[in-house]
């Protein structure tokens, strides 16, 4: 299980949405955790050289942090797409979040062999909608 990757992905997406450093409050909100928990984990990530945190300014991922965040986001995209295309799950966003900590990149790579993911992944991920912008949803029933 890798909670750190979930945080990195959340910081990456909040940075995309805010077009700058991510506020810890927004990261906590995205992950549905307390600001204290978010601060603690962000401190650990900073110690590992994956992000820089400045009080009152926010969190910025380092180059290493961005690489890991993008890998985590790609895994998440694979899980979402797999749930939609293969298992036909309506509430795929919620379930992808639940599965994320237990489906690591090795497993995601195998699931990737039977789905129709685009080469530009994860750049096509829509952070606001929490889904790949290119994923065709049946009449957008899940919204």
């Amino acid at each position, binding site marked *: *299980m890798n*909670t750190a990757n*979930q945080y990195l992905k*959340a910081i990456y997406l909040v940075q995309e949405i805010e077009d700058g450093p991510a506020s810890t409050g927004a990261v906590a909100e*995205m*992950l*549905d*955790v307390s600001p204290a928990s978010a601060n603690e984990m962000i401190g650990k990530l900073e110690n590992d050289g994956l992000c820089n945190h400045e009080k009152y300014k926010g969190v910025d991922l380092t180059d290493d942090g961005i690489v890991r965040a993008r890998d985590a986001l790609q895994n998440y995209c694979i899980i979402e797409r*797999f749930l939609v295309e*293969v*298992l036909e*799950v309506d509430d795929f966003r919620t*379930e992808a*979040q*639940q*599965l*994320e*900590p*237990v*489906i*690591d990149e*090795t*497993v995601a*790579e*195998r*699931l990737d*062999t*039977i*789905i129709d993911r685009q080469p530009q992944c994860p750049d096509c991920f829509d952070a606001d909608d*929490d889904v790949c912008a290119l994923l065709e949803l049946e009449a957008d029933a899940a919204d």
Partner: protein
Amino acid sequence: MSVQTPVSSDHQLARLLQIGVVLEEVVEARAAKHAKELEDIDDDIRGLLTEAAEESADHRERIEALVEGLDAETIPFGEIQTLVEQRYESDQDFDGVLYDQLCNEETAYKFYDDLIEAIEASEAEFSIDRSVLLDELASIREEEETGVEEVTTLMEERE
């Protein structure tokens, strides 16, 4: 998005087991496809692929039995076979086939290992007996571990 316990209900457990079934189906379909596509394959590799396909079919049936106990369904093998066929890259040499098989076995091992860890970390009560569930998954994980060793040995012999 949230940081949640991945296995806290029958539904979540069933979903993870369904993924296990699909992984086994992918292994079964790819191993069978490799054995069929490569005509001048030697007996050792053909034997390994045939055995891998049979073992995956057995694992799939055992996990399906668990999923059934949770009152859920699994994806029929034919559907996964079709998806594998659609995206199969046929220009693989023997080394590629063995490497693919190694990835199959390692992936399955990792999946069951993570799943067992997640179930053990969860305090949820499931409709199926927890010890039966964990014993079955541990037994399958052990067979995957043996599979990794078999492929590795075969690869080393060819170096």
